[in-house]
């Protein structure tokens, strides 16, 4: 596998920056000017945030799916799994309790 050149890599950062910029603008615009209603807005916010997370991981932190880089990816996925369990569980439990108190 040939090593990427400086220009290749610098371009990567700029592409990432472009994506991130768009994915930041959309949610801010939606909240400031949009009128999608809370549910749709929240959904769109979530999608943009997730997309931007992936973009930054890909272009800034250089995490991708190629085979040799699996260790980080596994670590991140595993941590995300636990995070979802913990944070999601917390919101579920406390939300449920809040409704019944």
């Amino acid at each position, binding site marked *: 596998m040939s090593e990427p050149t400086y220009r290749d890599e610098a371009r990567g950062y700029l592409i990432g*920056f472009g994506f991130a910029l768009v994915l*930041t603008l959309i949610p801010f615009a939606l909240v400031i000017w949009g009128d999608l209603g809370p549910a749709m807005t929240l959904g769109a916010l979530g999608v943009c*945030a997730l997309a931007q997370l992936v973009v930054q991981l890909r272009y800034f932190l*250089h995490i991708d799916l190629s085979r040799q880089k699996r260790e980080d990816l596994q670590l991140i996925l595993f941590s995300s799994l636990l995070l979802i369990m*913990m944070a999601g569980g*917390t919101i579920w439990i406390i939300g449920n309790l809040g409704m019944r108190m």
Partner: protein
Amino acid sequence: MKHPILHPGMNLGPHHGQAHYDAERVTFGFWVFLMSDLIIFGLMFATYVTMANPTGLAGGPGPKDAYDLTNVYAQTMVLLVSSVTFGMASLAMRFERGSGPITLWLCITLALGLGFLTLELLDFSNMVEAGAVPSRSGFWSSFWGLVPLHGLHVFVGCLWISIMMIQMRIFGLAPVIKTRILRLGLFWHFLDLIWIGIFTIVYLGALSS
């Protein structure tokens, strides 16, 4: 000894010799630390979400009374740009452009980091004026537990950048120095990841629900 393939992106490349091999261990370790930190932030986010309701607000000011989206947008942009400028520093190091360009890019990043902190403090002082202080309600407690925690990380990042610039002057680009800058890069990008969560959940999310 066999050397398995190294860490992606945030790596140096075999032409860096010792530093490249050391990076294997230390970057992995740093990733693990970041994931542990991620849990801390995740739970702060979860707490914030559970507090974002009338009980949590306890009759105090709400998000609409205290958040200033213009400022938040500015903070977001500054942090995002600083991520790219740090990327340039990493590239300068990876492609051995010498400590000059690295220092330059780090300086710009530091300036942006400090700019971010200034904007954030400005924002905080406006919030205090609006009565959105932690002693007012559970909701504001959770805000003040989360966002300044990120700010504190950025502050540590700025301190770290400064120290690395000093150490680069003293020690040149010794292997340890390189792996430290590598980890600093991870840290800096990680802070931007957390910020995505903050502007989405804390500011935009609370304002749109």
